[in-house]
């Protein structure tokens, strides 16, 4: 009997869901109607209390919270491999989880607020100075991660990222100076390749026979100068990093456009994702040959720039153009390099390049740059013109806007021009042409001249034919 009642109730519930009136349902089981009716009425009442709509913004908030936490856990996972004793770091989170819902929410918000305060120079100064292997180092990284994810997207977030990349390099350098053996990971430009001895972001890196290379498109270990890579390895007391893995992060790729969609480009069989800040030449069509500045991430290949082959450089853009290849200064300096002086306002300070009044100037490990320079400052930069036309800075220093109007570099330029020395570049554009123009002022000085003042007494070169005439890019 009971089973029949259970079955009858279920059938009546299904019938009610399809809109059949209560009395009609009960006609199916007249002998049980007296028992079924109140249950069906209760069921109707309880079903009326549900909600059909789920608030989208609540769902979004929940998902964001979840992904941020997942990111934190991933970071903790990586760090716990090195520091298993640091599990105390997760205790606050566990404590929050055990709290009441509202209290947990309040504490979570308070933690975020506190961390924000601390990132702006508060109580975690100690952790900010910590190095990989230190107890407080995970705190420093967690603060950085939160700061990065809370920063507005776009340039500010990029600046955060660049700062953190530079921070990792500084940490590795400190570990080497302290002769500490420590697992590290950092990202930088390949500045020098001498068989197994590389320099990445100013850090000497020793490539071992078992070093793994990741991210190369063709699967080979064809790394070149100027590529941005991530190095995972161990610092050595002798002053370098033994590389375990080299991840190729940024490089150039030349190919033919096969298909274009809103967020994906297919170029010579490779799929690249584009983002809103990807620099793309206008009018590129399928079939065009292009150069892609590629950023390799764990979740795919991202195009930082897609330009036609033959794209003029430089462009007045904050995105680096494709052709420059920064080099290590001084050691491999050839006589074919010419030196220029660029003056203008600093528009962007990235890790490996600055934009000075629209002119991209690459920064290498031994470029002399005072810490006091900030975006917007008026500066003069001594640069070397590379064989591919890009500029690599030797020294950058603050300048007064009036410097170029008086006896400074312009005077030297005038003398150089009068002397018709082939090593000197005709300044283009002339500072007198358009003082308010965004185009940087470019002035030629001889390469072997350390100071601008020295150009006054410059002697004629013994063999001008060894130094070809260079034409600065307009």
């Amino acid at each position, binding site marked *: 009997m009971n089973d029949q009642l259970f079955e009858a*109730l*279920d059938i009546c519930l299904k019938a009610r869901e399809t809109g059949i009136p209560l009395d009609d349902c009960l006609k199916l089981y007249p002998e049980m109607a007296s028992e079924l009716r109140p*249950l069906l009425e*209760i069921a109707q009442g*309880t079903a009326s209390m549900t909600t059909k709509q789920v608030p989208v913004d609540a*769902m979004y908030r929940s998902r964001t919270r979840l992904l941020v936490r997942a990111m934190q856990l991933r970071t903790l996972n990586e760090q716990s491999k090195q520091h298993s004793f640091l599990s105390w770091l997760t205790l606050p989170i*566990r404590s929050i*989880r055990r709290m*009441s819902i509202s209290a947990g*929410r309040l504490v979570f918000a308070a933690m975020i607020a506190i961390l924000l305060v601390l990132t702006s120079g508060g109580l975690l100064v100690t952790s900010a100075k910590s190095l990989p292997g230190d107890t407080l180092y995970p705190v420093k990284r967690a603060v950085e991660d939160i700061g990065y994810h809370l920063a507005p997207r776009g340039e500010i977030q990029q600046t955060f990222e660049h700062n953190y990349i530079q921070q990792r390099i500084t940490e590795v350098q400190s570990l080497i100076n302290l002769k500490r053996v420590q697992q590290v990971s950092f990202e930088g430009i390949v500045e020098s390749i001498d068989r197994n001895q590389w320099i990445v972001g100013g850090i000497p890196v020793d490539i071992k026979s078992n070093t793994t290379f990741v991210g190369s498109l063709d699967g080979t270990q064809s790394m070149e100068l100027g590529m941005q890579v991530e190095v995972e390895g161990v610092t050595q007391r002798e002053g370098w990093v033994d590389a375990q893995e080299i991840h190729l992060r940024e490089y150039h790729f030349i190919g033919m456009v096969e298909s274009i969609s809103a967020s994906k480009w297919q170029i010579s069989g490779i799929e690249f994702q584009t983002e809103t800040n990807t620099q793309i030449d206008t009018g590129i069509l399928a079939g065009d040959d292009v150069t892609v500045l590629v950023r390799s991430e764990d979740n795919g290949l991202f195009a930082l720039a897609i330009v036609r082959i033959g794209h003029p450089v430089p462009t007045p853009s904050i995105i680096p153009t494709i052709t420059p290849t920064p080099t290590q200064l001084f050691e491999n300096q050839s006589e074919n390099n010419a030196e220029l002086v660029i003056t203008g306002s600093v528009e962007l300070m990235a890790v490996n390049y600055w934009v000075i009044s629209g002119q991209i100037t690459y920064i290498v490990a031994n470029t002399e740059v005072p810490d006091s320079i900030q975006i917007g400052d008026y500066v003069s930069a001594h640069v070397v013109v590379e064989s591919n036309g890009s500029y690599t800075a030797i020294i950058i220093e603050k300048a007064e806007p009036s410097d170029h109007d008086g006896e400074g570099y312009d005077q030297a330029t005038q003398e150089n021009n009068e002397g018709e020395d082939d090593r000197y570049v005709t300044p283009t554009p002339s500072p007198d042409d358009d003082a308010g123009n965004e185009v940087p002022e470019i002035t030629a000085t001889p390469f072997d001249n350390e100071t601008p003042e020295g150009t006054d007494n410059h002697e004629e070169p013994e063999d001008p034919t060894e130094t070809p005439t260079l034409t600065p890019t307009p």
Partner: protein
Amino acid sequence: MSAALSELDGLRLLDPQAITSIHNRYYPEVYRFAYYRVNDEVTAEDIASDVFMRLLEAVHEGHGPNTNLRGWLISTTSNIVNDYFRKIYNRPGEDHPEMIESDNLLVEDPVDPIALTDAVERSRLIQSAINELTEEQKQVITLRFGNGYSLDETATVMGKNANAIKALQFRALAALRNLIRKDLL
């Protein structure tokens, strides 16, 4: 994420795509379950969010769900809701959630004050009665009438067979009827 990885595998690897996929798929069900029980949007949002945070923590600590992810989520939601009510009842002098009037109750004619009062009263009674059911009865009522699960879906989530669920829902409705008979019917 590789297609070969299941959702749970992706979750264990803390893969953002897997996490997003799981969240998007199950959040509405978790939210509806919580809302049905607490009848308050803000509280339901907090509970639903906490459920997924607990999932993440559990997986990270190596004791999350192995197969029945949906069942784990619903069960956890139910536990958090119970904790919530337990704490509410332990706070003397505060309004209990079933006393809070909601505009999403059994209102047949919102402009009729008598109908509105009746609807609020009916919902209060039902909600109060549901909280007095056994844990399994609460779950079956919430899943069947709050989330709109079918008999089979309810059986899967609760780890029982369909016949057991039929019996359980009968007893749950009968218990509800007994609890609110004098006041409601």
